């Protein structure tokens, strides 16, 4: 049955071994099995001190030719501890048992642009999240949302709870003020875009900026189920080789690949529902309270109080006291997620094909998200020197997000309308479908829900090509050329419609229609040569050098039409049209060199340099240098180490690296914008002063840590301390606005982030019928502004403390404030006219606790707790409900709007049962139930302490204004393997 593949394997072995035949050599054969006695297929067998080797076949067998002067084989296999076996000429076939790698020490981690290193030799705390950890417990909406609590050093906020996502990922604190605080995402070598594409809804809602439109970030387009693993390079010391794109860290996503062998088909179906994470509640009233709280002492106020009481009593008599929070946010949104995967391959060609369709309704009627993805990952070995790999992903998604977040008099954002809507007022449409005006606000939330639209549609193609050409293979060295190219093409359409009879529209815009067409095209390529060299004594040198290039372009067209013809949703059917176009073009080019020296796995030294230039810098052809250096020492590999002691692994490591970040596009220029009066166009300054000499901000990081493995690696421990200095931070400073400009971009601010990350993995029980593994993650970060203008005490222009533009709503309510010596994440407000720090958005610490049980081999129980302690929020939703007198009475005694946002949450939990089958057709059948955000313990008075009204960029976290409430999800899972 297996004869054909075996023959093919044989010829592969022959091909690999061919160059060695010229030398005097002997043959060794053997079998590799796991601890249960099952043969392991595809185990890599390498002759130590050479590049010669083979892989095991379907029965775990191998035969390899060993040169006369060599006497050891090294066997390695993903997920298992490698083993070195002594061999000699004429020996009998060897039986080898590999142990499972419970501590993940052998996991391979990307360290250069084209090289990998196994985890036990790594000098950085690179977090790796496997596809299983990502999606194994529960069904995930988006990749970024699925990460939280699973790795150290990360802080994630939700910019919108609307279906389709809206997350901001921040690694090891703030690294930039000028926008790009989000890590670089690379999927199979493609630098992918994570933009939020604004819809122009601000022009109807009155929101202050595009960032307040609560758009999704486009990582949402990835199907989490396609992911094999995610590596997170959190700081500069790990990410330096990515140069000016890596200041906020790098997230490297690898998608699943096919494996040679039988074709595997699996189909998974999740059914579930969304429900609001927490209802804040509504203020309860008696008739007396209505009169008192809506009335007053002056004649007008007394009359108003009496009128309100009469209306309340009449409504009560009719039984029409509504709970509008429940009416708007109380939907149970149905979720269906179907995924099909087919993978397999021959000895030369492997494939992975997947398709997925997710259809999700939100907690507000009419909101929802649909995503269709298709993927083909193909690997083909053209000959023993040349391998080509292609990863193609097509995504089509659409989201209906309705209106949430900040606005000004648009009457659209639910949080606003609900804050002012009184529950005794009937806002339901009459029998002709006419919605009554909201007597207390500029919009009727029921009309918003039923008659407005805010939609985004995405068509996206991601394509990565990877070519690996082995130029040279000799006994002790190889030279590979790795060519990598990627493109990311997004064609997006946004659509916003507010009918002409909407309350806030009448008399002004008389209906609002906006359609955006965004065309984003990014491509990148790199060419890297990697040279591996083994000395006779077994020291390994890996040298790599190459070039990288990135090109990004965007054409964003927003057309809006107002003064609409009734009931028309065609851009032409309005009396006033306006067009905005935003163009972008960025080019970056860099050189990379890196040298890695591995002394018998005992000491691993790495040094590298990257030289980058970018059109975003003032001088587009000036190269900036980003060095890195690291050392890892595996004490347990030294001869003096007592291998019979309890400590299996003891590594000390230190790493240093520098990354950069260029200013966002357009900041080099001081431009005029156009305005119009009486049909004639004019020029005006637009408030933003550019700077044509900008240089990138840099982040240099020193990281120290230790990795310990104890008691057969049943206990593993990782501790890391880092100091990350962000120098010459690009920041917008509020200018004295009497200059005619409201802000300028500057380069003279330094910031220090320090933090500690600790991970404890325990695997105390590994019995057949009871397997338990738990991971405890603990981390915190502290920041301090170390320089503003010139350092204290030296000559030159010092910059006074200032409120960064556009991050919050002024010192009157609370905002971020840049003050030398203070954290950058502080919340400040005017206390007696003096800016005073009254909160800090940075958590005191965070703690993630992941638990995996396997009972009786077939029952998996997993749950993940997440505790965030001491992170303050500015809750301006309550400011609104206070004003509208709708704050629940239990919060009457809260003073101020800065609140503690600590919480303890059961983020994920799932129970899965693999039904034992003896069928030739169905190889596996799995059923399960799970949930996400199942319960939260918090004192926070609003929906969810993970929130941000200003989107994902800059400093914006923990400012809450009328968000789309987060949801809880519950699922039923069905999985079939064929």
């Amino acid at each position, binding site marked *: 049955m297996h004869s054909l593949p075996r023959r093919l394997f044989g010829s592969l072995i022959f091909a690999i071994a061919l160059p060695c035949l010229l030398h005097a050599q002997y043959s060794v054969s053997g079998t590799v099995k796991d601890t249960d006695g099952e043969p392991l297929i595809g185990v890599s067998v390498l002759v130590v001190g050479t590049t010669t080797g083979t892989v095991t076949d379907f029965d775990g067998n191998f035969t390899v030719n060993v040169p006369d002067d060599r006497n050891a084989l090294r066997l390695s296999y993903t997920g298992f501890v490698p083993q070195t076996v002594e061999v000699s000429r004429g020996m009998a076939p060897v039986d080898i048992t590999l142990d499972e790698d419970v501590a993940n020490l052998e996991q391979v981690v990307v360290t250069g642009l084209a090289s990998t290193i196994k985890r036990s030799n790594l000098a950085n705390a690179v977090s790796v999240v496997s596809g299983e950890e990502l999606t194994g417990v529960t069904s995930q909406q988006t990749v970024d949302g699925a990460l939280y609590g699973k790795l150290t050093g990360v802080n994630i906020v939700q910019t919108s709870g609307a279906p389709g996502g809206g997350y901001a990922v921040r690694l090891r604190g703030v690294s930039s003020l000028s926008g790009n605080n989000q890590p670089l995402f690379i999927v199979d070598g493609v630098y992918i875009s994570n933009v939020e594409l604004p819809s122009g809804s601000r022009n109807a809602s009155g929101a202050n900026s595009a960032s307040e439109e609560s758009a999704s970030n486009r990582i949402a387009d990835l199907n989490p189920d396609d992911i094999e693993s995610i590596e997170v390079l959190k700081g500069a010391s790990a990410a330096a080789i990515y140069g000016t794109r890596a200041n906020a860290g790098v997230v490297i996503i690898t998608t699943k690949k096919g494996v040679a062998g039988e074709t595997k088909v699996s189909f998974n179906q999740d059914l579930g529902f969304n429900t609001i994470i927490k209802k804040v509640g509504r203020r309860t009233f008696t008739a007396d309270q209505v009169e008192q709280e809506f009335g007053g002492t002056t004649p007008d106020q007394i009359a108003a109080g009496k009128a309100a009481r009469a209306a309340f009593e009449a409504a009560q008599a009719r039984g029409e006291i509504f709970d509008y929070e429940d009416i708007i946010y109380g939907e149970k949104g149905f979720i269906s997620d179907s995924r099909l995967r087919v993978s397999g391959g021959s000895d030369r060609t492997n494939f992975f094909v997947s398709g997925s369709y997710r259809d999700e309704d939100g907690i507000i009627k009419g909101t929802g998200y649909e995503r269709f993805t298709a993927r083909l990952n193909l690997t083909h070995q053209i000959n023993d020197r040349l391998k080509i790999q292609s990863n193609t992903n097509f995504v089509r998604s659409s989201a209906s997000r309705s209106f949430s977040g900040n606005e000004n008099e648009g009457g659209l954002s639910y949080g*606003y309308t609900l804050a002012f809507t009184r529950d005794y007022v009937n806002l339901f449409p009459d029998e002709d479908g006419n919605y009554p005006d909201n007597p207390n*606000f500029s919009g009727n939330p029921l009309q918003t829900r039923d008659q407005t639209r805010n939609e985004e549609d995405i068509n996206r193609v991601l394509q990565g090509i990877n070519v690996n050409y082995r130029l040279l293979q000799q006994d002790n060295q190889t030279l590979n050329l790795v060519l990598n190219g990627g493109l990311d093409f997004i064609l997006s359409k946004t659509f916003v419609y507010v009918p002409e009879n909407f309350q806030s529209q009448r*008399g002004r815009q008389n209906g609002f229609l906006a359609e955006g067409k965004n065309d984003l095209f990014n491509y990148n390529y790199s060419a890297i040569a990697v040279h591996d060299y083994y000395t006779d004594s077994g020291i390994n040198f890996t040298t790599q050098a190459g070039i990288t290039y990135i090109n990004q372009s965007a054409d964003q067209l927003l057309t809006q039409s107002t003064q609409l013809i009734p009931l028309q949703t065609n851009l032409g059917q309005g009396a006033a049209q306006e067009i905005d176009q935003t163009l972008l073009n960025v080019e970056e080019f860099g050189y990379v060199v890196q040298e890695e020296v591995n002394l018998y796995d005992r000491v691993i030294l790495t040094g590298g340099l990257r030289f980058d230039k970018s059109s975003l810098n003032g001088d587009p052809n000036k190269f900036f240098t980003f060095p890195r250096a690291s050392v890892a020492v595996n004490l347990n590999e030294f001869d003096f180490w007592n291998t019979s002691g309890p400590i299996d692994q003891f590594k000390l490591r230190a790493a240093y690296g520098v990354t950069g970040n260029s200013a966002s596009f357009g900041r080099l220029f001081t431009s005029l914008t156009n305005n119009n009066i009486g049909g004639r166009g004019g020029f005006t300054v637009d408030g933003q002063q550019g700077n044509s000499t900008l240089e990138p901000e840099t982040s240099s990081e020193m990281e120290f840590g230790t990795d310990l493995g104890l008691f057969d690696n049943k206990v593993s421990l990782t501790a890391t301390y880092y100091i990350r200095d962000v120098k010459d931070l690009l920041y917008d400073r509020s200018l004295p606005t009497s200059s005619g400009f409201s802000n300028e971009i500057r380069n003279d601010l330094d910031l220090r982030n320090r933090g500690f990350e600790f991970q404890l993995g325990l695997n105390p029980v590994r019995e057949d019928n009871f397997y338990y593994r738990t991971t405890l993650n603990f981390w915190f970060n502290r920041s301090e502004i170390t320089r503003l203008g010139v350092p204290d005490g030296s000559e030159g222009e010092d910059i006074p403390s200032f409120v960064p533009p556009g991050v919050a709503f002024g010192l009157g309510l609370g905002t971020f404030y840049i003050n030398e010596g203070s954290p950058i994440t502080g919340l400040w407000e005017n206390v007696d006219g003096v800016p005073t720090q009254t909160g800090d958005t940075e958590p005191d610490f965070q703690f993630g606790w992941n638990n995996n049980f396997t009972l009786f081999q077939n029952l998996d129980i997993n749950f993940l707790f997440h505790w965030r302690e001491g992170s303050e929020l500015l809750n301006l939703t309550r400011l609104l409900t206070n004003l509208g007198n709708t704050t629940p009475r239990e919060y009457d005694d809260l003073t101020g709007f800065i609140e503690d946002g600590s919480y303890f949450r059961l983020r994920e939990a799932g129970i899965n049962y693999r039904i034992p089958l003896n069928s030739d057709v169905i190889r596996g059948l799995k059923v399960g139930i799970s949930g996400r955000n199942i319960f939260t313990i918090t004192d926070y008075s609003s929906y969810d302490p993970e929130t941000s009204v200003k989107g994902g960029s800059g400093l914006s976290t923990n400012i809450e204004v009328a968000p789309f409430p987060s949801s809880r999800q519950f699922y039923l899972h069905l999985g079939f393997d064929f």
Partner: protein
Amino acid sequence: MKKYNILSLLGLLALFVFSCEIEEQFDPNGPSINSVLTNASKAELDLLVTGIEAGMRNGMAGYVTASGTIARELYIFDADPRNTEDLLGKGDLQLDNNTFYITGPFNSRYQVVKNVNILLEALDNTDSVSEAEKQGYRAFGNTIKAYMLSQVLDMLGTNGIRLDVSDPENLGPFLSQDASYDAILDLLDGANSALSGAEFPFFLSEGFRGFNTPQTFSQFNRAIAARVATHAARYDRALSYVNASFLNLDGDLSEGVEHIFGTVAGDLLNPLYKQEGQSGDQLVVHPRIIANATPGDERLDKFRLRVQDTGQDGLNGAYETALYATATSPIDIIRNEELVLIYAEANINLGNLEEGERALNIIRNAADIGDYSGPVTQEALIDEMLYQRCYSLWGEGHRMWDLRRYGRLNANFLPIDRAGDDVFTQFPIPLSEGV
């Protein structure tokens, strides 16, 4: 051996290291400021003029409504609580120096000043127009600049204004209130002198119809000067300015200069227009305005009985603004009615009580409430003049300064709606000014 391979590696890399030269960048999204500062064409100068006129409208609503709230002319009922809290001094709240009610008007006024300064610098560096034409551009620019600065001074009061702002890196000091008035009047006088012999090669909008030649624009310049002198309580100068303006005691009181609005791309809608019956975004007339009204006063048609008289934040009012009929109705910059009132005020303060009374009667009769019948004393006529200003200029950004210069911007003269509310007399200098 090793050396050989490193060489081959380098040789290989050389294949890929091609010369990747990144081109010099330009902004694909708009013209650069530098392109107009040197060798500006006439078209560019004209675009700047239009930009200045259009830009004046930004932030104007804040100037009118924030000062009107403090002067207890109106309430702003919208989604921003600071309009009913900070501005009325609810509880312990003070006016904040980093909040939109001051930063909005302040920033937008100075943005126009910047546009004027760009125009002035562009004129110094171009030969595309004649000297007489340059004089015309400059006189227009400086008049508008002075007008904008006067509004900043209104809001900041004794904090004064920053006059010299042409170099963003080296901003001049904040002047005292008196010196600020001097500077603004000097600027207006200078512009007015420049108008003689000047030419206007540019077009102004319909809002300047009748005031778009150097001669007629001069009358607008003098009218603004009269208002500024009045705010400064320099009544002798106010009288001479108002006499040189388009004051017409027998003419149409509505004659004047306006901001116009439109639905065209880049244009604005009238920010002070509020839809009838609209609740969540409304300017509500302060009850005292209604309570003190004279029955039959035709100016009461500025107020409309609300459909829903619900209040907000403990404040109530039965009437809403009806100043503007549609979202594209123009807003007056200055009109004859105000000039007549300035003429009356100057005369009363200079002791010409009968001339003052005569002017007030013009206003009274236009409002159909008959001649003044009270005592003809300076004190009584000041009361009467302020009363007439209240109804003639309601909701147009005057009341706070009117009350202030007569020492009436305080709780002795104004009602306190909620216990603990305060009456503020001026706005703080924005935080970003760093003073």
